[in-house]
Each structure stands twice: as structure tokens, then as C-alpha cells.
């Protein structure tokens, strides 16, 4: 679909986003909530903003759709300053998901998802078709659920609808403010997995705010760590865990950052040793197992080597304890992924 066809202010696909010396000083405060933030987020990447409370992560995010006006600096979407865009058009082009979800209780699921498309003047049947498509994409049943009201769903399901609503007009950019913070841990884990799957299918540029480092590592292609309104480190989860920029980041990611790092990789990312004669006797794991789980299995089984299986169940090779420990040890700080 083209911009001319739909009237989207920001087109479909995914957009690059950049903070350029963005600063926010709230009236009556001496210190800046966000200070000279310069940050480039590539199209279709998930960028996690993380930091302790008061670090300015939500403020930074809400300046993107001008829920909070910036004091100085700029923010650009695909090179266009957000100041040059009409405020309502800007917001209609950016999906917004937040912890409180904020579904409209008086509208059906279809009505909720169709909010922005209707504002953009889509015909009724196109809105419906889009709502059906999205509902399926987020794992709900279009035939059953389209005509229901938000109160008829669990918190996790409501947030799925919230995510669908944020993507309804094929917005190239999504802002997510602790989106899975209010659901129970099991549901949160599933929502995270499903969102990553969804993102792989429909890549959007995502700014994701959280205070949970595990969530940041899991969800982010890149993580921006903020402290007192300043950017402390901006890098991939692996680099941040491997080489925290300073004491603050090291503390923030936690003393178990070595183990956390093992979660970033799967056995797929390693160069395996060929499966020898003894391979059949070893415990087996799938190739998409995280290194952390592989290590855990070695400790539980009291072995120093595992046989790795490909999806068909055939032995692909073996992995040694030493390979894993070397990976997070001091000799080699990162692997080529």
C-alpha cells in the first residue's frame, strides 16, 4: 500500500528513528529529565530503553510522539523532524502500547483495533479485514473475538489486542512503555515470545521501555542504558553484558551477567565439534537451546559434553563445557555471531 492510497502520514514498513541532542527540562526543575540524548535506531530494530526510575526512559520515549514536548534538540523519523509534522498525523503514524493497555471499554475488539484506520478514512470492510488479520497474527480467534468487548478478555489477551491496535494502520514505528509489566510472569514470557515472533514476521522499528534487564536482553536488538537523563551505554545485549561501560552498567546488568550472556546465544551460534563415536552416549539437546540451558544440563547431568541435534533429530555435533566457559571467560570477550 502506498501513502497516497491510505493517507498514512508516515507510510508503512519500518522507519529509522534518531534522537539528536534531545533534551527535556520539566518546568521548575533544575536538572534535565533527558539531557542531550543522541541515539540512532535503525529501521526494524527493537531498541530497549532501560534504567532505574527517574532515568528519563519514559520521557525520552514519549517525546517521540510528542506526548511530552521536548525542550531542545530534535527527533527525526526517516530523516524528517517530528517538529515538521502535524501532531495528530504524527501520532496516527506511531503505534503506542503501554502497561495500562487503555483499550476502549465501550468498543468491540474490532472497534478498538480499527480506531486509527477509521480516523484515516479506511472503508469499513478494509478495517474489518485488517482487524481479522491482526487478531490472527497476535494469536486470538477472529471469528469469536472480533465482536467481543475488552472486559471479556484476560490481561494478557487484552495486551495482545493492544499490540494489534498499535499496528492497525501498518505504522512504521511502535512505542512500547513497559507493555508486559502488568501481566503474570508466565503470560509475560509468552507475550514476549509471541511479540518477537510477530516482529520477525512484521518488522517494525520499536522503542521498548522497561526496567527489567532480563526483558531488555531478551527483547532488544540494542539496549540503551540511561541514568539521570543521560545515555550511559548503547549497544547490543551481548556487548553490554560482555563489556559494561562502567561500574553503573555492570551493577545494573547484575553480577550474573556472564550467565545472562549465555542466554543471548543458542548452540546454533557455536561452531560444534564433529560427533564422534561416544556421541550417542551423551545427553542430547536441540540446536536452538540457549547456552545457559545447555550449561545447566551439563551441571545437572554431571557431564562436560553434550550432543547437539538438528531439528530432524539427527546428531549435528557436540559441544564441550570448555567451549562455553571460554566464551564468557576473560580470553575471548565476544564471538562473531
Amino acid at each position: 500500500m502506498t501513502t497516497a492510497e491510505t493517507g498514512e502520514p508516515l507510510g508503512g514498513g519500518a522507519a529509522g528513528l534518531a534522537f539528536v541532542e534531545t533534551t527535556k527540562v520539566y518546568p521548575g526543575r533544575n536538572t534535565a529529565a533527558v539531557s542531550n540524548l543522541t541515539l540512532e535506531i535503525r529501521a526494524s530494530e527493537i531498541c530497549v530503553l532501560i534504567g532505574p526510575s527517574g532515568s528519563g526512559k519514559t520521557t525520552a520515549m514519549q517525546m517521540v510522539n510528542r506526548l511530552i514536548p521536548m525542550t531542545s534538540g530534535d527527533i527525526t523519523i526517516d530523516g524528517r523532524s517530528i517538529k515538521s509534522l502535524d501532531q495528530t498525523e504524527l501520532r496516527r503514524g506511531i503505534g503506542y502500547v503501554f502497561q495500562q493497555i487503555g483499550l476502549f471499554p465501550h468498543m468491540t475488539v474490532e472497534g478498538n483495533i480499527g480506531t486509527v484506520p477509521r480516523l484515516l478514512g479506511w472503508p469499513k470492510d478494509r478495517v474489518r479485514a485488517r482487524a481479522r488479520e491482526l487478531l490472527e497474527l497476535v494469536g486470538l480467534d477472529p471469528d469469536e473475538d472480533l465482536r467481543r468487548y475488552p472486559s471479556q478478555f484476560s490481561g494478557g489477551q487484552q495486551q495482545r489486542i493492544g499490540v494489534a491496535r498499535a499496528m492497525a494502520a501498518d505504522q512504521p514505528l511502535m512505542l512500547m512503555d513497559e507493555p508486559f509489566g502488568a501481566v503474570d510472569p508466565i503470560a509475560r514470557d509468552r507475550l514476549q515470545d509471541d511479540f518477537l515472533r510477530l516482529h520477525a514476521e512484521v518488522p517494525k522499528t520499536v522503542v521498548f521501555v522497561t526496567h527489567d534487564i532480563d526483558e531488555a536482553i531478551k527483547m532488544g536488538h540494542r539496549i540503551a542504558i540511561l541514568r539521570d537523563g543521560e545515555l550511559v551505554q548503547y549497544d547490543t545485549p551481548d556487548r553490554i553484558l560482555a563489556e559494561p561501560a562502567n561500574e553503573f552498567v555492570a551493577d545494573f546488568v547484575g553480577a550474573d551477567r556472564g550467565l545472562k550472556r549465555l542466554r543471548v546465544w543458542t548452540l546454533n551460534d557455536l561452531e560444534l565439534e564433529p560427533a564422534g563415536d561416544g556421541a550417542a552416549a551423551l545427553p542430547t539437546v536441540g540446536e536452538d537451546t540457549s547456552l545457559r540451558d545447555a550449561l545447566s544440563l551439563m551441571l545437572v547431568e554431571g557431564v562436560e559434553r553434550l550432543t547437539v541435534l538438528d531439528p530432524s533429530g539427527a546428531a549435528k555435533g557436540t559441544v564441550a563445557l570448555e567451549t562455553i566457559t571460554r566464551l564468557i571467560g576473560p580470553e575471548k570477550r565476544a564471538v562473531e555471531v
Partner: protein
Amino acid sequence: MISLIAQQPVIPEFERGSECVRENKQFCSDWFFDNFDRVFGPRVVEHIELTAIAVGIGFVIAFTAALIAYNRGWFERSFAIFAAFLYTIPSLAFFQLMVPITGLSRTSAEIALVSYTLLILFRNTLTGLQEVPEDARMAARAMGLTQGQILRRVELPLALPAIMAGIRIATVTTISLATVAAFIGVGGLGQPIFNAIQSGFKTEFVAAGLLAVLLALVADALLVLLQRILTPWARARRV
């Protein structure tokens, strides 16, 4: 109520009506049905008109005031005090007070009746708006709805149950109060009641009172029905 009725009742069709009428029993259904079209029908219509106009105009005023108060806090207090003041005026006195200004007219009656609807309609509309969940408002803002769109598409629909509750109370109250308006000769079901107080004819008195109660019940039921149609989400059950 019996004490209100004159000692020497003036019975219609003296010596010619049914036994029930001649003995002035509590309620003579034969007389009621024979005379409904003449004595009560037009009064019921007048009563509905008095009520509908009062609630209609009252709603327009109160709704406008609530919208202003929703955006400008200071107005809430001022209008609430004004409406509460009107509400405290005794109804019989209010109707009488209007006569020197607007005469023995329907206008006089409506001014008083409208005044009594303002407090409840204003309060309920404003409370309904103020109790719209902040999350919904925030989501609407973030999605790029304008202020007007937020009001029309989110805030007013969500305030609707509270607004409808106000309209129900205002309607029932007005139906009751409108009987007093007959005091200044504007018809309605109050007129047969006033007649009966003077003549002592019990059937007319009881019938008019019952019709007013029935009217209130029917109006309330219709408004409940309307509210159900307008707020389907309120009845959605978890599955």
C-alpha cells in the same frame, strides 16, 4: 388524603351515575373508563409534554454547563451552587413566583421544572466525564485523536451510563413535580387532582394520582431500555 377532600362531595352526574359513583367510593372503574378520553387523556398528553420539554431543555443547559465545567474547574463550583440554590426553592412557591414575570403560562411552569432538573443532570454528566478511565483517555491521545474526537468517541460514550442515570432521576422527579404545576393552570395530571380536592370526588383523585405514578414507571422503563440499547458493552459478560 381523605382529609384533603371536602366534607360535602360534589359528585358528577348527581343521582344519575352508577351506584359506585353515587356513593363516592374510593375508585369507580366504570366512571374512569367512560370518562378517560374526556377527563384524563388530554391531561396525560399535557403531562408528557410538560415533562419532555422540561427534561429536554434542562438536559441541554446542564450538558453544556457540564462540558464547560469539565474543561474549566472554576465553573463547576459556580454552576453547582446555582443549581443547588434553584433546587432548594419550594416547588409551590417557585410556580407562584414565576406568575408575575411570565404569567399563568406554560413558560412559567417550564422555567420552574427545568430549574429542578439542572442539579442532577449537571452532576451526573460531569461525574460521568470525570470518571472516564485515564488509560482510555491516554490511549486516545497517543493514537492521535483530537480533543473533539476524544470527547465524542471516548469520553461521552463512557459517560453515558451516568448521564442516563441522571436523565432517569430527572424524568421521574419532573413527572411528580409537574402535577404541582396545575396550580398555575397549565393542565397536566395535576388538574384532575386539584379538581378532585375541590369536588371531593375520590375516583378522579385516585385515578389521576395513579396515572402519574404509572407515567413515571413507564418513562423510567423506556429510559432503561434506551440505555441498554445505547450501552451494549455494559452487559458483555466474561466468557
